């Protein structure tokens, strides 16, 4: 047992997964030294509000922080090393290099997240932003408050939330998407198109199958030129074309990396004492029997906690199994998705994809694998549970029928 004794835990990445990791280690009774390393100067803060409440007209400009510095340092006994980007890892001597310091560990949780992909050639051009950090969100908010004409590159969830914030102010906004339909990877082509109807209904122009040829302007953005020659005037360009896991600092460490740190089902990253969690982790999700990397709030929170518990008690590791879940808010409507989207077919079990409410179920073979809802808050978690129970698709359809019946019975009585 002595070989497995962990006296120091180092967590690299001070966002949700990293925070949950240090909390879970203490909750598990770990009394050793804990160091939390982050590259931003800020205490851990919540990212979903950055593209929602923080962009709303009159909304807050301060982040939602989970714990004060005093709570982290005094109550949880965490040593904070902020504004200290990790630059290297030596798994043989068990040392992390960060912010010019060498930090030794017995157990390590890698939670460095993902970085928003930028638009090549726009570096240094004022008014062009990605939306990942608090500083990004504040810059976008300022531009919207000043009445910016906005172009969003990429019709994903972040870009769509920016569009909502712009329309809430009555500002002109155009979304440019390179693929023929939006959100194909997240929800499939048909339902991606269904969701994108919200843009048209709310006055956002959406150009699909169009690429950006150039972002024009000298020093500051003035417009966006599309591949077909169209130029859209813009004071603000928000680039929402996905994120890449932040593994560059692991180069040379020998840690297996393949679109994320490659982990087993226990979030173990392939070198003694090393685990990964959150957007940076690619792990084997036994429920779907496949390797996954998800950039979702709930997965980051849960993986952070699981990775840390496994890291401080390596003799009692437990696997991390989940039905991935995310949500997004567009123009006052809530979109929720749980599971995995497949191209093997889906069925609408409530509402209408062209309307303000629908519930769609996805299948893979005869198994229920996913659920997408638009304003279907009552439905989503019930199907998520069925997915977790490996329910058959026909069982889910039967459940949908009985719950519709039950509902009409209560509304008519």
């Amino acid at each position, binding site marked *: 047992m002595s070989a497995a004794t962990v006296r120091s835990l180092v967590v690299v990445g001070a966002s949700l997964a990293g925070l949950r990791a240090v909390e879970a280690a203490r909750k598990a009774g770990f009394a050793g030294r804990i160091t939390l390393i982050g590259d931003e100067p800020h205490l851990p803060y*919540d990212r*979903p509000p950055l593209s929602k409440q923080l962009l709303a007209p009159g909304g807050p400009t301060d982040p*939602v922080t*989970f714990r004060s510095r005093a709570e982290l340092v005094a109550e949880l006994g965490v040593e904070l090393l902020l504004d200290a980007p990790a630059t290297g890892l030596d798994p043989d001597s068990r040392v992390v290099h960060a912010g010019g310091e060498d930090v030794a560990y017995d157990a390590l949780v890698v939670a460095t997240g993902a970085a928003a992909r930028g638009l090549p050639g726009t570096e240094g051009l004022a008014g062009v932003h990605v939306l990942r950090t608090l500083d990004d969100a504040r810059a976008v908010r300022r531009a919207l408050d000043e009445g910016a004409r906005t172009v969003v590159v990429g019709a994903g969830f972040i870009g769509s939330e920016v569009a909502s914030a712009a329309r809430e102010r009555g500002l002109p906004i155009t979304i440019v998407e390179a693929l023929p339909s939006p959100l194909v990877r997240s929800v499939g082509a048909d339902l991606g198109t269904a969701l994108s109807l919200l843009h048209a209904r709310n006055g956002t122009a959406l150009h699909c199958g169009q690429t950006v040829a150039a972002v024009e302007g000298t020093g500051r953005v003035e417009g966006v030129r599309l591949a077909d020659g169209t130029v859209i005037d813009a004071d603000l360009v928000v680039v929402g074309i996905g994120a890449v896991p932040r593994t560059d600092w692991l180069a040379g460490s020998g840690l297996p990396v393949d679109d994320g740190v490659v982990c087993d089902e226990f979030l173990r990253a392939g070198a003694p004492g090393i685990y990964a969690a959150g957007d940076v982790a690619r792990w084997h999700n036994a429920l779907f029997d496949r390797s996954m990397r998800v950039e979702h*709030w*709930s997965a980051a*929170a*849960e993986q952070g906690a699981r990775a840390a518990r496994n890291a401080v008690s390596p003799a009692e590791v437990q696997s991390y199994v989940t039905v991935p*879940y995310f*949500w997004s808010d567009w123009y006052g409507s*809530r979109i*929720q998705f749980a599971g995995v989207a497949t191209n093997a077919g889906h069925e609408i079990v409530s509402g209408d994809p062209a309307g303000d409410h629908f519930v769609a179920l996805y299948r893979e073979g005869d198994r229920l694998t996913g659920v997408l809802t638009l*304003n279907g*808050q*009552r439905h*989503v*978690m*019930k199907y*998520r*549970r069925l997915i977790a129970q490996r329910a058959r698709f026909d069982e889910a359809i039967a459940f949908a029928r009985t719950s519709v019946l039950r509902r009409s019975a209560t509304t008519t009585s």
Partner: protein
Amino acid sequence: MRIVLDRAKCTGIGICEALAPTVFEVDDHGELVVLSAEVPEDAQNEVTEAVEGCPTMALRLQP
């Protein structure tokens, strides 16, 4: 223990319902319904997880 819900903070994301479905349910309007204000004997762990797992910190437990 009683469950205290701060409606001003709750946005109906449903993490609590996922963790403790016998105690929390989001309704058609996206409002959270606490099905049992008193934490049931057999759901202590799930409710604690739900309270701690709330993304908007809208839940707490009161002795």
